[in-house]
């Protein structure tokens, strides 16, 4: 299982790294999809099948396509970010902050009592039904709020993207 974990993690990290470093935005997007796949794989590994499927459905099926359209609408067709200097001026600062953060987190994880003492995870299957039940009982209010939020986001996105129409 460790092998599977390590492979998946390597894929995920590679995808993430490529997604933030590649110059061509479409390539970035494809790397991002790889990253999403890796995360979905982790979900399957963690017995969260439902979340894995949702991850694929929403991130690869919807978010990636959305980003794709955004790239297509804002760039020339080839999707290149344009010559040199795709990174901002203070790129070293960003990298520094990120590295520090990652280092700090690793240190904390190594030190933490909680983590080292935890038992290995137990497995539990057939949670889909329970998720469904919980969604319409205990979690019904968040669900409704989420529905309103999604609707609002959808309408908002349309309004923002179409605001020019009125001005013309």
């Amino acid at each position: 299982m460790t092998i599977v974990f390590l492979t998946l993690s390597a894929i995920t990290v590679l995808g993430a790294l490529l997604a933030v470093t590649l110059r061509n935005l479409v390539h970035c997007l494809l790397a991002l999809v790889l990253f999403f796949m890796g995360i979905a794989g982790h979900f399957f590994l963690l017995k969260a099948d439902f979340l894995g499927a949702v991850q694929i459905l929403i991130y690869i099926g919807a978010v990636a396509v959305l980003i794709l359209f955004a790239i297509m609408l804002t760039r020339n067709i080839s999707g290149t970010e344009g010559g040199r200097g795709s990174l901002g001026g203070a790129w070293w600062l960003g990298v520094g902050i990120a590295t520090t953060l990652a280092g700090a987190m690793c240190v904390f994880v190594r030190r933490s009592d909680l983590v080292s003492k935890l038992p290995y995870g137990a497995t539990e299957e057939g949670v889909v039904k329970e998720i469904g039940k919980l969604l319409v009982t205990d979690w019904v209010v968040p669900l409704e709020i989420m529905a309103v939020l999604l609707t609002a986001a959808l309408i908002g996105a349309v309004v923002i993207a179409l605001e020019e129409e009125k001005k013309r």
Partner: protein
Amino acid sequence: MDAIYKLIQHYAPKIPDLLALALAVLLPIAIVMGVFLTVFALLTWVERKALGRIQNRRGPNRVGPVGLFQPVADGLKLLTKEDIVPAAADKVVHFLAPVLTVVPAFMVLAVVPVAKGFVPVDLNIGVLFALAVSTGSVLALFMAGWASRNKFSLLGAMRSVAQVVSYEVPMVMAAVVILMAAGTLSSVGIVEAQRGLAGWFVFKPWGLVAFVIFQLCAMAEVARTPFDLPEAESEIVAGYHTEYSGFKFALFQMGEYVAAITMGGITVTMFLGGYLGPGSDLPKIGWLVSAGWFFAKLGIIVVINIWARGTWPRVRVDQLLGFAWKLLLPLALVNIVAMAIWHFASNKLVGWGASAVVLAVAIVALVKINTGQTFEKRSYRFIS
């Protein structure tokens, strides 16, 4: 998989554990791939033969008896063809795209129960998995179109993205009804929920509507003829695979056909009772009979696809999207309501009638709204 693992351990206890595990994983994959690749090869032959018959032709009849080896000949021909990559193409993406078209198509196979007790992986989210994974093909199509650096390819890719994303929505909505009825996402569970006389979901009013919606969406999703805009030959040459030749082209064809088969398999599983049928529960040969039933039903779906391909003109891009958003999606939503009525009705007869009435009203209203002004009866003057 577990069953095979136990079998191996039982019959050949000497085999080391890791090998047995590997066998248990690889064997079902090999079987499924083998069976479905054969079905794919056969299907290309059947399609060409049937299309030939529809069109007053004979179809392939030179290679082997009644042209049966035509797929082999095609495969060899495509294998030996030169693989041309356009100079301006994005080489890596251009190479990856055909491979990635095939992968989701085969991944969906993992949750299709082809016979009683034979499903490669009985995920408890089977159907959701299938729907989610099949979405992945859209990115492969886009990669192909974008990497080719060809305007026809790009147009085809944009069309296919718009099309697949649009049809995904009514498709999932149609599937929701089935999940409500079966109370599970597992593909085996859905099949088992359709036991009994006229238990297939397609025999219920909401099931029939959902079946039609799902089938149409499946045809759109794998770009079969009335919806084959991404590769519309008369408009954009071959769409996203214009710049592909040789075996990469074969991979596209394979991905498309396998996707059509797997989509058919999902349809059969969800609506036509999967592997169920008279004799599918017999003790010894049950698995064989049930596999026979499954493939027979799959054949019906495939024939519907071929028939549509041979006879229908293609819709236009706005009509295609309008059809999904203005007709199929509202209908699928009404269908969920109808299912709820059926579910909570005092007795089955009332539920049947009430849901049928609701659906009939919805269909009539939607068709009226959507087609009211489009078609005109024309009359012509004659000058003599």
